Structures are given as structure tokens and as C-alpha cells.
């Protein structure tokens, strides 16, 4: 037997063992499969964001009306397969390019850069009935631009209006261990624990911390994060539901070698309910999320160590999302909408630490078209409304608990902004 023939037999065996791999997963139902040992998916989108508002971002710096645009082009390559009949491997690399421009008077600036690159690999062992353990490793590669010098810093805009508001950070590495515990074929408990090592990076100091002072680089060493997660998944007939909850503990973040803050313990919960009846109704998906963080430890003026803040600087955040897609041949389309509410934090509205309440609404259309079993196109267009409550300041002053003194800080009226978010892209599977 020739070696080449043996390799072909081996490859054929591997192909049989690997069997079908999920395809068209981005489509509702997503049940189509391809018979290949490895599935490679190439995907990209072009996303355009445009907004205008009664203030720019940050709202307290300029009293002029604000506006801005952003173009973000993410691209990714995913490899999914079963190199061994009992092992499923998923690999993904994702990069992107972004151009952001804020045109607010006194806050104008723009930046064009590659984004950070994200890579991940997950291996799931399928050889034990009743439990499927998995290990995953994710990383952030600092290919973006963390320090925006000069007016480029003004290109950081409200993340409720544009997708990319941070253009780079350091090396982050995050291993995750977990397992799927299928109590029945359609009732699954998933538990995982992850640790995120977050590397230091340079960025410019705040443009507005001390007006008139020249920018300089400052080193940020962000805190590492440990997170435990529990997820429940259930499906019955046209219904499927998912509940996810996590708790995170973070270490201290330092700036230029000095402890800056330690974020409070963070709790996240998410619920998803989906009803799928393509023949009569389509697919409806309802999502709800809530986030709460305990009080941070912060640096008070003159104190040698971080101290737990007297009130909670973290607002609670609530989010609801609803989407309904109807199949029209190979096309799925329908409305989408979301509502996000951030309540004001515990600080009195007359203190500099007060974060006012904020609401964000979005409504739009989603369309997905399967040109073939291996090619799909996506289109998403949404209009966004954002409203942030006023920040009070008598005689242009607010009390800073960190400085233990009144400091200059202009009052900010209610800020209302509107924007468009349009995205189009494709998935190609090989």
C-alpha cells in the first residue's frame, strides 16, 4: 500500500467521523448542515453609525450641539471541526478597521485605525455520556490604537450611539473551563469559570481633567477579572429558553503604578425566550438583561489606600430586546427593537460622582438572505434615541468627594441624541 493511499483512507475516515457540521447558524432555525470534517466560515460586515444631539460627547465639555459618524468593518475567520470523533474544536480570529469622527464644536476630532484583534479556541470533549467538558482560551491582541493624542481623543464617542468607543487596549488572555450537563436531550445546564488577565497599555490622560494642560501618556494596568457563570437552556417544540447568570470579581486597576480603583463585585443576568413556527408565524425572540455592581473601592484625596466609596457609583442597567423574523423563501426579515435603561447611581445629583439616568431606544429592520447553503447576507438598519437626565451644578460647581471640596463643573441639561445604525455583510462557508 502506498503511503498516499493510506493518507487518503485516513482522511476519508476522519471525514466520516467528523460528520455534519452546523452551517447557516446565523439564520433562524439554522438547522442546515454540511458533510465536511472541517467547516471554514469567512464573514465581514460594513457598519455605519451617524448621530446628532443637543450635546457632544462627553456632554459636560462643550455646550454646542453634537454630531458624529463612525464606519466599522469587522472581519472574521472561523474554523469548526472534529479532528477526533470525540473532540469538537472551534477556532476563531477576528479583526477590524474603524474610522470615527466627532464634529461637535470644541470637541471635534477623528481617528482611523485597525481595531484590536480577538482570537479564541474552544475544545469540547464528547466522549462521556451525560457531561461534555470544554476548555476555551480567548485573547485580545493590541493591534488597535490605545492612546489617541491631540484632537483624536475627541473621537471617543458615546457607546450608546456608536459601536467602537475604545480603539485599543493591551494584551488580554482569558482561559475558561466549563461543562455542559444535559439533564435531557433538550434541557442543558452549563457551568463555567473564566479568568481574564488584562495587560497594561498606554493611553493619553483625560483631555478634560485639567483643561489647558498638554496631553501626556499615562500607563493603565487594568484589573484582572474572575467570573463564574451558570446557564440553563431548554427547548420544547417551538419554544426555547435560556437563562444565564454570572458573578465577577475584579482586582485593582492602576494608573502610572498607583492604585486607581477596584471595581465592585458585578452581577449579570440574562434571559432569552424564543418561539419558532416558520410555517405560520416566523421566529420571535425576546431578550432581557440586568446588571448590578457593588460599590467600588476608589482613591480619595490624601488617603494612602483605596477606600470603599460611601455610595454606589455604579448604576443598575436593564435591557430588553425583541425581534421577529418571517421567512419569505430564502429571505428572513422583520422588525427589531430594544430598550436600555440605566438608573441614576446612589450619589446625590449635586455631587460630581452622580451619574444621571439614561434611556436608549432602538427600532429597525433585520434581513437575512441565504443565497445558497454556504452563502448568507445580512442587513440591519436601526434608528436610535438616547436621553440622559440633567446634571445639576449651582454656580457652576459640584462637590467632589474625591477632592473633598467644591470643584468647577458646568451644569449639563437633559441631553437628547438620535442616530442611525446600518450594517450589511456576508457569511461564506467553505
Amino acid at each position: 500500500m502506498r503511503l498516499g493511499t493510506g493518507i487518503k483512507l485516513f482522511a476519508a475516515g476522519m471525514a466520516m467521523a467528523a460528520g455534519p457540521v452546523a452551517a447557516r447558524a446565523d439564520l433562524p432555525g439554522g438547522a442546515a448542515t454540511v458533510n465536511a470534517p472541517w467547516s471554514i466560515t469567512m464573514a465581514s460586515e460594513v457598519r455605519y453609525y451617524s448621530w446628532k444631539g443637543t450635546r457632544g460627547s462627553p456632554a459636560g465639555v462643550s455646550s454646542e450641539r453634537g454630531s458624529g459618524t463612525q464606519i466599522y468593518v469587522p472581519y472574521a475567520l472561523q474554523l469548526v471541526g472534529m479532528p477526533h470523533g470525540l473532540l469538537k474544536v472551534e477556532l476563531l480570529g477576528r479583526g477590524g478597521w474603524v474610522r470615527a469622527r466627532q464634529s461637535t464644536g470644541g470637541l471635534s476630532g477623528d481617528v482611523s485605525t485597525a481595531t484590536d484583534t480577538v482570537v479564541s479556541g474552544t475544545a469540547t470533549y464528547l466522549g462521556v455520556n451525560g457531561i461534555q467538558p470544554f476548555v476555551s482560551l480567548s485573547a485580545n491582541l493590541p493591534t488597535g490604537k490605545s492612546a489617541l493624542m491631540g484632537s483624536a481623543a475627541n473621537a471617543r464617542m458615546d457607546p450608546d450611539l456608536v459601536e467602537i468607543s475604545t480603539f485599543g487596549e493591551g494584551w488580554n488572555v482569558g482561559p475558561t473551563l466549563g461543562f455542559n450537563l444535559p439533564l435531557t436531550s433538550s434541557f442543558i445546564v452549563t457551568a463555567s469559570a473564566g479568568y481574564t488577565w488584562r495587560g497594561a497599555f498606554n493611553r493619553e490622560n483625560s483631555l478634560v481633567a485639567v483643561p489647558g494642560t498638554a496631553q501626556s501618556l499615562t500607563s493603565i494596568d487594568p484589573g484582572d477579572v474572575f467570573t463564574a457563570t451558570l446557564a440553563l437552556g431548554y427547548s420544547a417544540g417551538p419554544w426555547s429558553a435560556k437563562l444565564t447568570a454570572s458573578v465577577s470579581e475584579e482586582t485593582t486597576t492602576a494608573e502610572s503604578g498607583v492604585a486607581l480603583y477596584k471595581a465592585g463585585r458585578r452581577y449579570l443576568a440574562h434571559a432569552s425566550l424564543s418561539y419558532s413556527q416558520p410555517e405560520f408565524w416566523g421566529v420571535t425572540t425576546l431578550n432581557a438583561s440586568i446588571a448590578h455592581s457593588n460599590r467600588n473601592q476608589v482613591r480619595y484625596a490624601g488617603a494612602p489606600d483605596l477606600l470603599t466609596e460611601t455610595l454606589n457609583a455604579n448604576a443598575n442597567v436593564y435591557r430588553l430586546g425583541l425581534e421577529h423574523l418571517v421567512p419569505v423563501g430564502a429571505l428572513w426579515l422583520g422588525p427589531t427593537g430594544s430598550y436600555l435603561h440605566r438608573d441614576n447611581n446612589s450619589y446625590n445629583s449635586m455631587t460630581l460622582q452622580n451619574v444621571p439616568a439614561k434611556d436608549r431606544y432602538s427600532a429597525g429592520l433585520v434581513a437575512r438572505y441565504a443565497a445558497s447553503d454556504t452563502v448568507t447576507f445580512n442587513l440591519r438598519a436601526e434608528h436610535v434615541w438616547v436621553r440622559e437626565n440633567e446634571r445639576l451644578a449651582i454656580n457652576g460647581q459640584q462637590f467632589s468627594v474625591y477632592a473633598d471640596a467644591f470643584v468647577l463643573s458646568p451644569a449639563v441639561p437633559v441631553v437628547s441624541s438620535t442616530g442611525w445604525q446600518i450594517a450589511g455583510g456576508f457569511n461564506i462557508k467553505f
Partner: protein
Amino acid sequence: MRSTVMIAAFIAAAGLPFATFAQTRCAEGRTTGGQCVDEQLAASTRQTAIIFSQSKISHTAFPVLPSQDARYRYPNELIPNPLPPAGTGTPAAN
């Protein structure tokens, strides 16, 4: 020649159980009772658990395809970035 035969024998031995397994394989494993686990549900809960366990892996994106961002991006919306430029003010003159 001998090494070629040995490699071929190894490959055949390695490939046989794979082929046998392929007849009864389940894409996301089995329950204790031997039933195949719901493939989409298992993949979805695992992906969600990994993303929640690495919610600060990157401010730019989670490790998913861009077409899946709408489905998985919400943890980012719930966790504010603590490092934007902030109006910290200037001490007022006495």
C-alpha cells in the same frame, strides 16, 4: 516500504473506530441515557457561558462572527467602560 506499511496499518486502526463511531455520533454528545443532545441548544449555552465568563476580554468585540454580534454583544452594553475621558473638574478658587 516497512515504514509505509506500518503507517498504513496505524491509520487503518485509527480510522476504523472513527468510522464506526461516525454511524452513531452526536454533534454535541449524549445524555446519560444515550440520547443525542440538542445541537443548537448545547452550542448556544456553551458560547454564552464562555462570553459571560470573559466579558472583559476585549472592549472591541467578543470572539464571535460579526453576524452574531447582535445575539452576543449585550454584556458589553451592560458593563460600562470605566476609562473614558471624564469631566473630573478643576478645584474651585477660594
